């Protein structure tokens, strides 16, 4: 505040910025977790295990990329778990009805995007807080998924033409090694990084999330930005649902319950502020990896899944507490 140097220096490089950014703390925690895993179990750091972690985090990760846009806007999407199920059921039913799998998949993705669009419209047109809107659609979408499937599970039989190919999306491995689902996650995350840090939409997302009124007064189309974020979130949830169906060949109306909480947790652990405006896509990716590794470590060390739930919850609170503490220290002394 006492600086009197007039020259405005160039921006620091993105890489340096990354290291100084808020997610550096989470990244350090991720590295520590990795080391801890290695120490606790010899099988942890083996490529087989790590690739399976990559497989396990893919669906959550894809959804978290979408959710990041919504959260950076200062909004929330609680309906992603239901959208996941709705898209998977839609795709599954269409394939069972004999649709070719690419068409059925396209329809499932469209259903996801539509679900997001509905959320977004209710938020920007009706002005209902997104927490309320998506709390409602969490229930509505789930209900629709149960209605159209009549509550019955859908199993894809591999004897049906095209199903074997469809299953490759979720079960296949690129070069016989890397799980296809992980490849999808990497692709989605890459698009997410570019959209958020390079596109006008990304710039406007930060502007709206940080100060909606100021953004509006510099001519940012606030409604369009929010709507887009909800559509992306719905689309991502739909894609994750379709991959889930492909992986298991099976889906039912109650599939994916509670996924929204894991997804939001990953974004928050990754350093995004719940009230919007700050956070990065890299942070989200790290948050997703953190949750995945944590569960894996607990798993291979034979710790009950009940404990996993407890630990994940504690980690969320600890991550935000650490972040708050760090920021307070930065501003105070």
């Amino acid at each position, binding site marked *: *505040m*006492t*600086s*009197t*140097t*007039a*020259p*405005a*220096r*160039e*921006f*620091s490089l993105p890489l340096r*910025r990354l290291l100084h950014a808020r997610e550096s703390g989470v990244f350090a925690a991720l590295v520590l977790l990795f080391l801890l895993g290695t120490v606790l179990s010899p099988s942890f750091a083996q490529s087989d295990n790590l690739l399976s972690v990559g497989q396990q985090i893919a669906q959550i990760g894809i959804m978290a990329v979408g959710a990041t846009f919504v959260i950076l806007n200062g909004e929330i999407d609680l309906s992603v778990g239901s959208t996941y199920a709705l898209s998977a059921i839609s795709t599954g039913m269409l394939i069972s009805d004999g649709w070719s799998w690419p068409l059925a998949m396209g329809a499932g993705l469209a259903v996801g995007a539509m679900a997001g669009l509905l959320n977004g419209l209710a938020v920007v047109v009706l002005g209902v807080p997104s927490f309320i809107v998506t709390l409602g659609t969490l229930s509505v979408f789930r209900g629709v998924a149960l209605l159209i499937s009549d509550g019955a599970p859908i199993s894809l039989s591999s004897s049906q033409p095209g199903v074997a190919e469809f299953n490759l999306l979720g079960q296949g491995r690129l070069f016989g090694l890397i799980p296809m689902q992980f490849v999808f996650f990497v692709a989605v995350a890459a698009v997410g990084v*570019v959209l958020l840090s*390079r*596109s*006008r*939409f990304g*710039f*406007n997302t*930060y*502007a709206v*999330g*940080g*100060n909606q*009124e*100021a*953004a*509006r*007064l*510099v*001519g*940012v*189309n606030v409604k369009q930005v929010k709507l887009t974020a909800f559509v992306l979130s719905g689309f991502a949830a739909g894609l994750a649902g379709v991959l889930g169906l492909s992986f298991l060949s099976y889906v039912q109306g109650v599939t994916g319950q509670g996924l929204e909480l894991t997804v939001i947790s990953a974004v928050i652990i990754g350093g995004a*502020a719940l009230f*919007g*405006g*700050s956070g990065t896509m890299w942070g989200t990716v790290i948050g997703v990896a953190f949750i995945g590794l944590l569960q894996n470590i607990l798993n291979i060390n034979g710790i009950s899944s009940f404990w996993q739930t407890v630990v994940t919850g504690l980690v969320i609170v600890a991550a935000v507490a650490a972040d708050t503490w760090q920021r307070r220290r*930065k*501003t*105070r*002394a």
Partner: protein
Amino acid sequence: MTATSRETAPATASRETAPAVSVRGLSRNFGPVRALDDVSFDVPAGEVTALLGENGAGKSTLLKILAGLQPPSDGGVTVFGEEVASFDPSTMLGRHGVAIVPQELSLLPDRSVAENVLSGVEPGSRWFPSRRRMLERTAELLEALDLRLDPAAPVRSLDLATQQLVVVARSVARGCRVLILDEPTAMLTPAEAERLFALMARLKADGTTMLYVSHRMPEVFRLADRIEVLRDGTHVASWRSDETTPDQAVAAMVGRELGQLTRRAERPARPAGEPALRVRELSGRRHTDVSFDLRPGEILGVAGLPDSGRVEMLHNIFGGERGTGGTVELLGRPYERRDPIASVERRLAFVPGERRAQGLLTTMSVGENVGALMTKPLSRLGLVRRRALDRRAAEQARRLRVKTATMSQPITSLSGGNQQKAVLGRWLAIDPGVLILDEPTRGVDVGAKAEIYEQLFELAEKGLAILCSSSDLPELLTLTDRIAVMSEGRLVGTVEAAEATEESVMALATGAVPAA
């Protein structure tokens, strides 16, 4: 400049002769930044002491320490001779009797005046305070302070100035002996300020010590017995107010003699040509039938009390809020469906008055704030050319002399003046034909103020049409060619700035003279 002898209170001073507040060697660091550096001075009991300094001089930090909102890094404070052991608000108020009236008033808007005034010291049992006795006690207190207020009225129903008086009453109710006022008149009209001054005089007569922060010299010299000046975190001057002059005080604040600001009226350039902005019978929230013309190269001021509707009128022209009638012609073409997106396209710029709430992209960097309107021209296929954006924003910031260490630091880390320059600079990217400003220098220090004026003069000389609303009359007299005065939603007169005085404008604004 004259640094004065600072009498140190003798260690044996009795409570009665000790200064109300004695600040000794106070320092405060924020990371590498030293916001306060070894500051020592006394606030004599029963007097009004003014604390002056530019934004970033350390005033806010000092006040926060005295209010117990943050501890010092080094040094100490004594209050009536007693060392402050713990810097937290309840100790400062409860034990030492030091209360602060902050700029952002912390009242419970939906509770009554009485509940606010007596919150924490309610009569009756702790869990079930007696409502009747609260009203009685509050009425007595307000009476003693000469405040005519209904103790049962909800605070939300009061205007800002009155709410401020409620905060003062609340401090008194809690037995405050030292009252700190942080720029209390920044948001007040002259009449409202007078009510506050009357209350301050009342408190002073009762023996209350006051420490008062303001940028307004006439006020300071009228109210204060002593003047203390901070600059860059250090204490640079201390006078009895009758020993110094406003010029000397300002010089101490900025560290140099500030040349008298050139008045716009003394500049040669004269507006010419067809109006860049033609407003006819414009109506909307709190304004009715406003008509005026603004020519290229002209700076038109808009004066009026805070409730005169002038701010709403600006928002209506820009399209930030919907109007109910009338027409606007912008750069020769009718501008009907107004909204910020269309305004940007049509080169109509708007620097809003509430910088924090409406101007700053609060979570973004200096560069991103300056570059906010360059993203469109600098993108291809929806992707922003970040490097070009960074470079252009840095150039713009340099041109407007935004003082910042890097372009990537948060906008909120800058002082008010530099934030304002960044917001102004942002709009120059669209090559505006008309620039609307509201309170262009609110919360901006003297040095930055002069730079912003200079910038606006230059822009006007290049042919920009500028519409500038302000509650600071000297500012309008300095900055503008003509001043349109609004009162109760109507434009009641337009005066030439060269011939106008604060009194003549205020007379129009308050309706003291009939509309011309």
